[in-house]
């Protein structure tokens, strides 16, 4: 009898942690990758139906799929990293303009590699994924460059490639990675290790939104760089910040089991973003508007601090002077 009580007690003490991983997988990860695969397929269908850069259904399908990408863009482990899939979907920041260069070269040469998504998987990652697609749909001159028929095929192939890669990521999550993560497995021996992986996704996601999505257009006070904002051609810069924060907030809520301080910090950032009427951060060059973007970045950095100092240590992630520095 005593023995039975003990084993019941043990299973109860370990259960909540497993439940937390399972909750993150079922509630955060899988639905987002499912949505990505679904909207990726719809994007390919829309491009097949009408490949014109100005096509409203195509642009809608693109924006819907890009939304779905931003919501998973922090989940850079496991299936998203196989064959560098995440890089192929999201080659950004593109500090040296590789995407327009690569697309321009393909279009000028009418390179037959664009005839199929299978062959296209071998081109430079700069010419693949959502950021390349943005150039094909919204950039002048890329969206009007070269031969219409070739550009049409290129658009369809980039869309098809997105559909195939996003489908493959979701298929891998379903096939075995869910089991790996909710393990124990060779990759994650304990629930703590799985939760640490999620924490890393949270903190690198926050860092990316702060340093790249907000930091790039901000540049410095003397040299603001509005044209370095993410996806400004399609008018998505602030939207991407919002979508990333909403998704990261969901992960943070599950990971911290609803820590009020952490969630309040997210809400500060989201509220500040809501009152910003500058969808592509064009105002970073004017002191008044720049300040509004700076305080959003500061709010994201506050979330990072709280996550690193409070949540990290609870999950066994060191919050030391050196361990947080990383160089």
């Amino acid at each position, binding site marked *: 009898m005593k023995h039975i009580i003990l084993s019941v007690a043990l299973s109860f003490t370990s259960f909540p942690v497993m439940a937390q991983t399972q909750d993150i997988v079922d509630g955060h990860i899988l639905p987002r990758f499912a949505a990505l695969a679904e909207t990726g397929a719809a994007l390919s269908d829309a491009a097949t139906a009408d490949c014109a850069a100005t096509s409203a259904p195509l642009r809608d399908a693109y924006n819907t799929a890009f939304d779905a990408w931003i919501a998973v863009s922090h989940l850079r482990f496991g299936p998203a990293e196989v064959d560098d899939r995440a890089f192929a979907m999201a080659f950004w920041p593109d500090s040296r303009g590789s995407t327009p260069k690569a697309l321009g070269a393909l279009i000028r040469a009418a390179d037959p590699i664009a005839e199929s998504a299978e062959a296209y998987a071998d081109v430079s990652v700069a010419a693949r994924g959502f950021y390349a697609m943005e150039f094909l749909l919204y950039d002048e001159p890329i969206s009007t460059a070269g031969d219409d028929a070739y550009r049409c095929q290129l658009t369809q192939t980039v869309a098809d490639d997105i559909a195939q890669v996003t489908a493959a990521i979701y298929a891998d999550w379903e096939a075995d990675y869910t089991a790996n993560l909710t393990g124990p497995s060779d*990759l994650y021996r304990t629930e703590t290790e799985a939760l640490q992986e999620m924490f890393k996704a949270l903190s690198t996601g926050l860092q990316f939104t702060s340093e790249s999505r907000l930091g790039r257009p901000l540049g410095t006070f003397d040299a603001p760089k509005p044209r370095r904002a993410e996806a400004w051609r399609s008018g998505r810069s602030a939207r991407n910040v919002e979508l990333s924060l909403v998704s990261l907030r969901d992960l943070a809520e599950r990971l911290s089991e609803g820590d009020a301080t952490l969630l309040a910090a997210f809400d500060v950032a989201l509220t500040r973003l809501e009152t910003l009427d500058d969808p592509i951060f064009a105002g970073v060059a004017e002191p008044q508007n720049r300040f509004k973007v700076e305080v959003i970045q500061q709010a994201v950095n506050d979330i990072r601090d709280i996550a690193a100092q409070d949540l990290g240590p609870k999950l066994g992630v060191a919050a030391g002077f050196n361990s947080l520095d990383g160089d």
Partner: protein
Amino acid sequence: MANRRQFLAGLLATGLTPKTTWADAGGPTYLSAAAKPDGSFVLCGIDAACNILFELPLPTRGHAAAAHPSRPEAVAFARRPGTFAMIIDCVTGESSALLDAPAGRHFYGHGAFSADGTWLFTTENDYEAGEGRIGVWDATRGYARVDEFSSGGIGPHDIKRLSGSDMLVVANGGIDTHPDSGRTKLNIPTMVPNLAYVADGKVLETAELPPEWHKNSIRHLAVARDGQVAFGMQWQGDKLEPALVGVHQTGAELRLLSAPADALREMQAYVGSIAFTDDDRQVVVTSPRGGIVQTYDVDAEALIGETRLTDVCGVALADGGVLTSTGTGALVHLNGTRAETRSIAQLQWDNHLVRLDA
């Protein structure tokens, strides 16, 4: 050109300026940057008994330091992607020169002097081109920028001079970054780290990892008296890194030092600093993320011991073993698996403990 310059500089140094030596600075054995409890930053000189000899203010957070081989001058580098380095006169505590990275360059936080102390070499990023550069500064003329050359790769981080020669070894980490997006890594799928040996401004040899391990960023270096180079890596791939420590000798292949998978995992894919022990037969690496120090035997090519130490990062040669420094202010002497805390300061020791005569 360089010889003529050295000659003139030599005349200048012997003829006109009163000479101070490291003894005038109290004879420190180590340098380390640190943060103080009030949030300010300093560069400290530390003696062999782990006493702090001096504490000199830095404008921002430091990373590594380099010590002039004869003059009591230290170079304190800002953390990446900093654009300045400060020359500190360790006798007066004054800043004697400020190195501004040229336009379009930033420092990586490490540097090394030529054997005679004439030249300072700094690892830099030509970030519009995405190429690693080595900047050359003339220590005899107020650290004037005189030249630069290729580092032989992308993302050069640590740089050391081989013992008894003017051959430099550079850890090209392989990771492309651009200061407009902070430390965001831009080229993980295509990164190719290497060790590059450079002398007289030319890359004489590079050594790369096997292609399947191209995501293992070679970051920090230690040099042995026999010319052997040990390197610590940071794995950028997804899970299951192959190894994090290796050794190399010019003309040979890279050798990786192995550890059981569980022990490797404790390092959290991250080596923060690396040092040889007294006899050059062992390599000690630290991981602040794992809070662990690991010792590898060079001949056996394998892990032989580990010690847990919270927020450990700096490590340097010491009598009878190595000295490690931590973000909690401790200086801990390690001999095999025996750890002895030598001092605890109200400081957070930053990243690297630099030994003066190393």
